[in-house]
């Protein structure tokens, strides 16, 4: 079928290479801004990961005027507003975000309020942010969210205990610095769960009702890289090539899902994160195979394509390929040593129903290939419990 329309947009300049965190100073001049405000978390700071970045800022002629590092794993609207205050007080005019998804998304949320004023909650919706914000440099320290290039910031609304998506092409960073050396110290469990988040982005982007030729190419390539390199990144954390491949794949998958959006696995993961603080990557890892299985009747052909990307097809029979793709994901989760069910991840059994209801009205559900009901999503959760 000939599609009526598609669009694709990625505004981020991406630079990548080992050691680059200390060597991107000459990239900064064209961004504008001279007073750098660093957004990060305590773990990143204590690991000393800020040091190389600060050297780059000095080379680029930027003064570091302040740092905000009080960011929890599932950041919320309140944290964003604290960050805004801190940046305003320090007089920062360019944001440097160094960390995982929560840090990057907090910096994006701060950027909205710093430029446009008001409260972060005012910007829930679509089409509300239509102008460039302040320059934002994103330096990811996990290989998972791809947030450096996405048009989204997913932030918890503490009042409703739900994850809210803020959307605008201008949220993507101006400059993304991919330095695999920053991810060398990630422990195996975190490497595994964040890597599974990246894989979920790629798979759901490929299955999305909003997929398009450009995101398809990116999604399949990300699947290839992750299938090939995630186990090595988990088992040999100091394998720089595996780290480089995963950081790149996370970014490629980020571009894919920024354009195509995601589906029921993310809707469920957002619900479990909002209600029970289940880490995002882990929730995705535990639900991805089940989500693919649920969507099988609608997207068997597409699932079969994934088998080839994973290196477990084609067999010449499409239905067998689709099943192989699902099996591959299930085995991968076990291979990288993650918990095998939601119960082990601390989800209470009597909370599944509320999670299914919440997922049904999550923004991510809208592009799922099957129109999901709360009952069907509850079944997906039960099977993963």
């Amino acid at each position, binding site marked *: 079928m000939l599609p009526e329309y598609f669009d694709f947009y990625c505004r981020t300049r991406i630079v990548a290479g080992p050691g680059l965190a200390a060597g991107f100073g000459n990239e900064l001049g064209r961004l504008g801004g001279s007073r750098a405000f660093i957004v990060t978390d305590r773990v990143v700071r204590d690991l000393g990961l800020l040091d190389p970045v600060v050297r780059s800022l000095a080379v680029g002629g930027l003064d570091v005027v302040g740092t905000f590092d009080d960011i929890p794993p599932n950041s919320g609207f309140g944290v964003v507003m604290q960050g805004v205050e801190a940046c305003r007080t320090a007089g920062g005019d360019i944001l440097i975000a160094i960390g995982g998804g929560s840090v990057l998304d907090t910096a994006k949320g701060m950027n909205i309020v710093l430029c446009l004023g008001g409260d972060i909650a005012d910007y829930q919706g*679509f089409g509300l942010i239509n102008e460039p914000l302040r320059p934002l440099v994103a330096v990811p320290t996990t290989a998972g969210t791809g947030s450096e290039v996405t048009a989204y910031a997913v932030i918890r609304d503490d009042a409703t205990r739900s994850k809210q998506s803020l959307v605008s092409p201008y949220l993507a960073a101006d400059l993304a610095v991919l330095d695999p050396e920053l991810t060398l110290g990630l422990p195996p469990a975190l490497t595994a769960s964040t890597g599974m988040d990246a894989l979920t982005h790629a798979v759901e982007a490929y299955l999305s009702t909003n997929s398009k030729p450009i995101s398809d190419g990116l999604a399949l390539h990300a699947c290839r890289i992750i299938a090939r390199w995630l186990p090595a990144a988990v088992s040999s954390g100091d394998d720089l090539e595996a780290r480089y491949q995963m950081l790149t794949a996370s970014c490629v998958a980020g571009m894919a899902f920024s354009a195509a959006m995601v589906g029921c696995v993310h809707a469920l993961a957002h619900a479990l994160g909002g209600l029970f603080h289940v880490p995002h990557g882990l929730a995705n890892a535990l639900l991805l195979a089940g989500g693919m299985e649920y969507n099988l009747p609608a997207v068997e052909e597409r699932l079969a394509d994934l088998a080839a990307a994973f290196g477990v097809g084609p067999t010449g029979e499409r239905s067998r390929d689709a099943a192989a793709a699902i099996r591959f994901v299930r085995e991968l989760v076990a291979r990288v040593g993650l918990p095998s069910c939601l119960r082990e991840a601390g989800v209470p059994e009597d909370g599944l129903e509320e999670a299914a209801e919440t997922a049904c009205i999550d923004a991510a559900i809208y592009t799922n290939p099957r129109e999901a009901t709360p009952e069907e999503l509850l079944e997906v959760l039960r099977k993963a419990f």
Partner: protein
Amino acid sequence: MAFFKDAAELYECIGGFFKEAAKDPDMGPKIRESKLIITFEYSAPDSRITVDAKNPAAPGDFFTIITGPTDLTPDVRMSMSADIAHRFWFGKVNLVQALAKGEMKAQGPIPSILKLLPAIKPAYELYPEYLKKIGKADKLI
């Protein structure tokens, strides 16, 4: 050419249809349950319709429809051209695309908007019926 020649005609067609929906035993309760105030801001012609499912409605109605300005503060604001709105109620607008193209804007909690989409599905068949009933068959698409 635009579907509606002026705000009065839009209020007659879309506004009148919303007022019928307010009595609909199928859609009405689900919209009422949202407890939202939703304002639709239209351009070409400039006009606005507010759906108030928060405050008490008249007997027989599940919610209140206000055409034109109001002092109510909406929880959700949807803005679009009147033509997009007209097409939307025929079920002929792909929401994801319309949002991506900037043809529609939405302000407010996305989950509460998404929650309403299944509830309003019957409208896609009822809107053309309503237009025929009020002698506006020329507006059918």
